[in-house]
Each structure stands twice: as C-alpha cells, then as structure tokens.
C-alpha cells in the first residue's frame, strides 16, 4: 500500500482551514432574495384560515406561500409520504411550517411573518408514547396502523419463549434512552435558482442529494431531468441532514415562481424543530443465559416515540431490533416494536440510527448478567462472540469480526484486570461493545440499480477527475474517493480532483448515511479505476515492450523493472491508443440471505465492531460524574487515512459521552394561560447541554484491522460504530464506581444521587423506568433461524409485514 494506511492531510484540508470551503449559506447570487418560514405555535391544531394579504403588501416582500401552493406530499420513505412543504390544514408540532415569505432581505421577511394571520383550532395534544397508546383520538395521522400507533412490528426467530423457559437464569430489564438531537454547528441552509434554460438548481446542506432530487421532482411536479441538486459540504450532519426538508421544497418553489435566486437559512431554534434526531426509546429485555454464561435467547420489546411525522421512522424502528444479533451468538430471538406519533418535532436517524438505544440496554444488561454469574464482563462477551462468516438468527450475514482483538486491546491498555472492581469507592471502570452496518443492504426505495457510481476522466496531462454522488459531510468522503483511486493508479491523492454530491454532474450515489460511503463508493471507485488502469497498462506495456500484467503503477510512475514513464505519459499513450479516456464503476451490495418481509433492514456488506472501556469518578456527595479517560478499539477492516479514522472514532466517543451524560431533547407544557402548548424545553445551543473542550477526557484510540472481503481493500466503516459502546460503558463504569444502576440516559448527577439515596435506605440501588406499558403487538412473523432448518423465509405471519425498506 502506497497511499492507504499512511497519515495524510485530507484532500480538502486546505480549503477547510482557509475559510474557502463553500457551505450552502456562503452562496450569494446576484438578485438573490431571502426566505423565512412561519411556524406553528401549537403542538396540534387544525388551520382554519390563513390571511396573507398584509404580508404580501409589506414593502420589500416578493412572495408569500402557504399550504395551498403545495398540493403534493413527500417523505423520505415510500411508505410514509406524510409531509407537506407547508402544512395545508393540520399542524403536528410546535415549529411545523405553515407559510413562507420571500423578501429582499431576511429582516424584511421576518417582519412580514408577523403580518400573517393564522386562525388555528387547537386539538388535544399527544405528548408521550403512553398517551399515544391510550388515546387513539385525536389522530395525528389518518394512515397510522392503529390509533396513534404509527407502526407495529413483530418477528420471532426460533421459539425464544421456550429458550427463556429452559435457560438457567432469565434477566428482565427495562431501559429508557431519552431523545437527543444532532446539533450540527452549521444551521441548515438552501439556495434555489433558475438557470438560463429555465431549469432549477438547489444547493443545500443535505447528506442525500439523490433523495432530495427525487422528492423535489415529485413535489414540484417537474421532470427530474430539469432539476439539479448540489449537496454543499455539510457543516456537520450526523444524520440531521438525511431527511427531506420543508425549506428545500419551499425555497425551490419560490425560485421557480419568481425567476430569481432565493436563499433560506434556518436559525438555531428552527434547527431544533427540524430535528429528525434520536428517537426516545423505552425497551424491555428478557434474556436467558446458561450458568456457564452462554446466551440462550432474547425477547426484546421497544416503544419508539416518533414525534409528528414518519420520516425515516419505520426504518429506525426496525433498527431498534435488527442488529441485536450481530455481536453475540444468539440462538433464538424475538423482537417486537412499536412507533407512535406524538406532537413533537419528528425524530429520525442520528449517528447509529435506532441501534444505540437497544445497544445501551443490551450492554448494560450483559454487565448485570456478568455480575450475577460472577464472571468478568470481558470474558462473558468473549465467550459469546459470534463467529466470522456466519449467519445470525435473523439471517444477517456477518463477515470479518475483529471484536475479540478490540476487547483485548481495551482491557490490556486500561489495566482492566487489575483495576476493575478493585478501585476505591467512587472510581470505576465499565466495558461495552458494539457493532454497526457498513451501508444498508437495500436502498430506501425499491430498485435493482447500483447504490453508488463513480466516473473517471483522465487525460494526457495525467489529471484524474473523479465524479461521484457521494456527499462530503466532514467525514472525509472526498478523501476516501481520492485515496482509493490514487492507490489503484499509483498516484498522489492530491492529483485526483473530486467532483461530488451533484445530481446534475455526478453518477448516482445514495448519500452519506448508514456508514455506506467507504464501502459502496470505495468499491465503485476501485471498479472504475481498475478499468482505466487496464487501458493504461496495455498502452504503457507496448512502449515498455512487456506484457500488460507486468506493468506496475506507483509513486506517479508506470513502470517495469527500471524502465518507467510518468503516469501522465502513460495516460497519453493510452489516449493515443484508445481515444479519450474514461471509465465508470458501480457497486451494489450482495443479496442478503433473509427472505422474509422485513428482512430488508439489517443486511450490510460488512459489520464493524468496537469495544470501549470508560473510567468514571463519581462524587457520592453530589452525584457529579467525571470521566478522566476512555479506551476504545475499533475494527475498521483496513485504515484508509489514520488521521481521519482516528478523528471519526474520537468524534464518536465525544458524541456518545455527551449523550450518556447530558444531551436530551425534552419538552414541557406552557402554563394554561399561555396556551398549555407542549414546547421544546431548550431550543438553544446554550441550554441544550453538550460537552465542551473542558469536559472532554483523554481518549486512547486503537484501530484494529480485520479486512473484510466485501470491502474496498478490506476497509469497513468508522463514522458511527464507535459511538455505540460509549453510553453503556459509562453506565457500567458508574456501577463499578458507586454500585448504582442508572438504567436510563442521560445519566445526570441527580439520578446518581437518587440511586445512592435509595441504596443507603436499603432499597433497589437503581434509577430507571419501572414498567413497560401494554403494547398491542401483532402476532409475530415467524422465521426459523438457519440452525433450525429455515431457508430465510417466514413460515407464519409473512402476509402482514408490508415493508421492504432500509436506511440508516
């Protein structure tokens, strides 16, 4: 390897440190106008009338749009097309957009918002999942499965109940993971303009230009060929820019109506309303183990608080159960899930998409199991690790798995065996593991086309231009693209120009979500680069007088033994021989073995693995938690650029620790005289607590390389997986420190104090949800696991699950 594995400045590094990276709000076009949205102050209401006359006649206002201008709905998933750019008649959360004003500047647009008179008829508010379960009316969406229950899912892979009955011990635990939000520092922005041919261009801070493109065509009723969506580099995404946004539709419509460029940039409060963040999830785990500490079976129930719209929610809900099987050998598994609608900003995918919540529960429960069985938590996990190249109970195909090495690394480096359970009261260590997708096996909408395409253009100057729809959100997707092509062609990554995330210029790539980019774009890039390499090798071989397979590419040279030419010269010979040089490559994941309906969520070309040890200090007088150090080891398959890979791991540790200790998107009711509305408690960066530089502990990062054959040069994902074990490792460390279980996130000092108080009174030293409500889960789809003679099809209940969908 000449390029891969070596620490390098990322290809877009210079632009980022000079202020030259152009984010969406940095675009200023001639004659550009500005848009602001009017948002509902009611959590749940019907719109009776909107009077826009005064706003329209306000000096400097060019256009006012309302729900009437958007007859067509949209939604990221084909099964939930339940949103409108502007709500036509029904608002479902405080912040739901109802009107848009376009004016000469933001100030004028903001003034005009106050001149729009909306008459609402408030409806009763559904504020919690418990209310959604018990109050079918008023119904937030008519299409939901049952009252205010959006979706119900149930699967059974082997008779889990029997496995629990026969197990030596059964552990039953209820956990709660509070919702939280992405908090990208860049507020969402979009600019729309109509070009000289009358075609529309939308520049947006989106992670998914391809999906925005499709939905714009639907909502605007325009040919997709006349729409170009450019994903600007995102100023942080974390999943928060993977949904289709109201403002993208509204600003596009306005530009078409006015024939002038229009920009919108959400303010910070609006970003909290846009949300699509971590779903609050209540979960109940019943897990059976043998006295030797082998898992016998698990029954997991989840209750997912979706907020006001569908978004990615159906997929998120599947993900609260789909990946429980890919880490430890689980012979039998039953999973039941429900997502409810509530009158809060819609939830969606945040880093780890639906899997951090059950991962928290599973890993804390394993800690309890180890304690009860008198086993070391690391030993318990090592004993149960799933085998490489195996099938799981729910028919996922697991490839390489470097988790044992990850566990060994973090336990050795933290001196786990000499310090766990042996430190003075108030100090402790906690261990947890995690696993994640390297891209979802299926696209969001059903199709058999490639999930990523790369096009290469090479000429006699030796310049290489790579076109790909993948989106740079800070994770380094452009650097991965350049590095992989450079590795194949033996050139420097800086000699590759990346043109990415532009539906008008680049082959389709589904976007930056589900940790799919390295694997899918990387494989497509190898495919394209290998095709062009063959041509160049053939032309160069003629010059060198050898056969093409003996020609090597490295360090900007094409050579055989000590005869060489520059890459540019070789490209010139190839151009002479074959004409203008270009190649395309594409990638589609292998077909997953599961055949039952619902098997579409969970498959991935490969899975990444992580182990983490957290050290915690807890002050028993105040409950204050300090984390001095975290050890983390991530099985990345192969490292493309260790500087960026380490950054992804440490960024995940940061975000995970922040979620563990403080982040929460929570709501409160205004007093009755102020409408009693359910409002966001803290829609500001100041009050939405997140870790600062002062709170960040030392992080010891190890990259474990267990290459996976499905991945480019073996490289797996690194952007999301390392977040997963952090939260449970914190909870487990707190238990080791002061002997209390906090079974809900975030773990705040008041919860620790409450648990310590209970402990001192001789009560259960635990704070967390006390009960799991009755949920009308349906009869499960019954699928025998591979070792019970199944073929991946359901034997019962297969008719009711209607979905073929996947995402992250």
């Amino acid at each position, binding site marked *: 390897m000449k390029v891969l594995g070596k620490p390098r*400045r*990322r290809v*877009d*590094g*210079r*632009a*980022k*440190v*000079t*202020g*030259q*990276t*152009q*984010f969406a*709000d*940095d675009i*200023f076009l001639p004659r550009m106008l500005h848009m602001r949205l009017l948002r509902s102050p009611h959590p749940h209401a019907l719109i009776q009338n909107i009077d826009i006359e005064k706003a329209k006649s306000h000096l400097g206002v060019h256009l006012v749009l309302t729900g009437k201008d958007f007859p067509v709905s949209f939604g990221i998933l084909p099964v939930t097309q339940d949103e409108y750019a502007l709500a036509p008649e029904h608002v479902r959360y405080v912040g739901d957009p109802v009107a848009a004003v376009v004016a000469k500047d933001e*100030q004028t647009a903001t003034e005009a918002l106050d001149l729009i008179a909306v008459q609402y008829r408030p409806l009763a508010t559904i504020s919690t999942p418990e209310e959604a379960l018990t109050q079918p009316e008023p119904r937030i969406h008519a299409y939901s499965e049952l009252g205010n229950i959006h979706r119900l899912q149930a699967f059974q892979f082997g008779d889990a109940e029997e496995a629990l009955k026969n197990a030596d011990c059964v552990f039953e635990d209820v956990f709660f993971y509070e919702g939280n939000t*992405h*908090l*990208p*520092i*860049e*507020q969402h922005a979009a600019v729309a303009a109509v070009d000289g041919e009358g075609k529309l261009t939308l520049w947006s801070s989106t992670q998914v230009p391809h999906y925005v493109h499709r939905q714009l065509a639907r909502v605007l009723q325009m040919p997709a060929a006349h729409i170009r969506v450019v994903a600007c*580099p*995102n*100023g*942080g*995404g*974390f999943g928060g820019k993977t949904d289709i946004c109201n403002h993208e539709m509204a600003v596009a419509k306005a530009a078409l109506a006015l024939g002038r460029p229009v920009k919108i940039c959400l*303010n*910070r409060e609006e970003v909290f309303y846009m949300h699509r963040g971590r779903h609050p999830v209540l979960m109940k785990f019943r897990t059976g183990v043998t006295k030797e500490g082998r898992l016998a079976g698990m029954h997991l129930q989840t209750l997912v608080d979706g907020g006001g719209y569908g978004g990615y929610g159906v997929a998120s809900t599947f993900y609260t159960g789909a990946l429980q099987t890919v880490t430890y050998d689980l012979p039998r598994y039953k999973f039941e899930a429900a997502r409810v609608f509530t009158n809060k900003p819609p939830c969606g995918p945040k880093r780890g998409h639906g899997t951090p919540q059950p991962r928290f529960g599973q890993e804390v429960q394993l800690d309890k199991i180890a304690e009860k069985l008198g086993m070391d938590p690391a030993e318990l996990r090592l004993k149960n690790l799933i085998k490489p190249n195996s099938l799981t109970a729910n028919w996922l195909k697991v490839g390489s798995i470097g988790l044992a090495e990850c566990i060994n690394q973090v336990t050795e480096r933290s001196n786990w065996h000499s310090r766990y359970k042996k430190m003075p009261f108030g100090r402790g260590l906690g261990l947890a593991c995690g696993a994640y997708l390297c891209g979802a096996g299926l696209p969001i909408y059903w199709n058999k086309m490639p999930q990523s395409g790369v096009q290469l253009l090479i000429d006699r100057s030796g310049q290489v231009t790579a076109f790909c729809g993948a989106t740079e*959100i*800070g*994770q*380094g997707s452009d650097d991965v693209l350049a590095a992989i092509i450079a590795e194949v062609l033996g050139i420097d990554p800086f000699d590759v120009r990346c043109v990415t995330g532009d539906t008008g210029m680049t082959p389709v790539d589904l976007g930056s979500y589900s940790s799919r980019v390295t694997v899918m774009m990387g494989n497509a890039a190898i495919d394209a680069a290998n095709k062009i390499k063959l041509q160049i090798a053939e032309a160069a071989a003629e010059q060198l007088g050898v056969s093409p397979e003996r020609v090597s590419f490295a360090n900007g040279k094409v050579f055989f033994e000590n005869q060489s030419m520059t890459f540019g010269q070789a490209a010139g010979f190839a151009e002479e021989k074959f004409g203008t040089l270009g190649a395309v490559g594409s990638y589609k994941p292998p077909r997953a073995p599961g055949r039952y309906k619902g098997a579409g969520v969970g498959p991935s070309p490969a899975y990444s693995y992580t182990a983490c040890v957290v050290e915690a200090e807890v002050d028993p007088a105040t409950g204050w938690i300090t984390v001095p150090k975290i050890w983390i080891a991530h099985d990345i398959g192969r490292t493309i650029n260790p*500087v*960026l890979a*380490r*950054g992804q791991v*440490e*960024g*995940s*540790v*940061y*975000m995970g620790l922040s979620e563990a200790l403080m982040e929460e998107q929570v709501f409160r009711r205004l007093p009755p005289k102020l409408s009693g509305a359910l409002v966001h408690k803290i829609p*500001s*960066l*100041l009050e939405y607590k*997140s870790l*600062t*530089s*002062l709170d*960040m502990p*030392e*992080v010891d990062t190890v990259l474990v390389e267990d290459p996976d054959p499905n991945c480019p040069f073996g490289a797996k994902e690194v952007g999301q997986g390392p977040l997963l074990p952090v939260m449970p490792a914190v909870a487990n460390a707190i238990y080791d420190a002061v002997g209390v279980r906090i079974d809900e996130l975030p773990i705040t000092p008041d919860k620790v104090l409450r648990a310590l108080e209970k402990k001192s009174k001789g009560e259960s030293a635990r704070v967390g949800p006390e009960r799991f409500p009755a949920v009308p889960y349906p009869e499960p789809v019954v699928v025998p696991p591979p070792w019970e003679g199944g073929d991946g099809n359901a034997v019962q209940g297969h008719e009711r699950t209607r979905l073929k969908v996947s995402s992250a």
Partner: protein
Amino acid sequence: MRRNVQVGLTINGEAAEASFAPYKTLLEVLREDLDLTGTKHGCELGECGACAVLVDGEPKLSCLVLAVECAGKSVDTVEGLAGGAKLHPLQAAFADLGAAQCGYCTPGILMTAKALLEKEPKPTRERIKEAISGNLCRCTGYQQIFEAIEEAAERLSTEAARRNE
C-alpha cells in the same frame, strides 16, 4: 426607509469601507457586505463560537458585536490568516492533524487559537482547553484540535528561533 451607515475599518490589514443598515452585526457585515464568508455562524446568539474573529487582536464573537462599533478598529478573520499562499502554522497543523473535519467551527477556533498563541506562545493543554471552551465542535472530540494547536505552537517557536538566529 432605513438609512445605511458608512463605516471605515481595517480588515485583515487592509483599509475597508462598508455601508450597511445600522442594526447589522459585525458577522453580518463581514459575510454579506464584505464578501468574507470564511467567518461562520451557528446560533447568532453568542453560544457556539463559530463566528469568532479578532477585534484589535482580541477574540470576539462577531454575532454579538454591532458593526458600527468597529469603526476605526482592526478586524482579523480567517481569510487574513495565511501569509499569501503560505498557510499559517495553525492552519497547516489543523489541516495535517485532522483538527478540521467538517471545517465549520474551524475558522472561529483558528482565530481564538491565534489570539491565545500571541499571548502565550507555549500554552499547556489545560490552557488550550480553556481558551477554546467557548467554541463548540461536534465532529472531532477536540483531541486533534488540542494537538494541532500544540503543534502550531511548536512550529511558531521554531520559526521565531530561526528568525532570531
């Protein structure tokens, strides 16, 4: 109609004049009237630090400063950090060591770090943590930012030593 005000100030060492509505913040004037979009915004309420610039050498949140207050003052932004085509050691270290992921908080942190290193050429890790505690970064986990500032301090002191030889 609102009347614009006319203000003269020094931006990145060059004399500049701008005409703008008097309620505009320095952030808005830099980005909208002076084409200096390198300075970012994450809240416009003084909470995130993305808009930090130097006013007379002191780090300030440009979203909390009225541009009219800057008449006659000297304002430094990320655009003025590099010496021509040559990156400032802070910029080079940030690019080399992974301190910029999405790059959105980067300009504000670079300017804050510049002010720190001018006052304290060899800050401890603790001082660096304190200095940038008002700059939120959601990507990096801060480790590589700390390391880049330390590396830049090294490079700057080596450069200074070389100049003194």
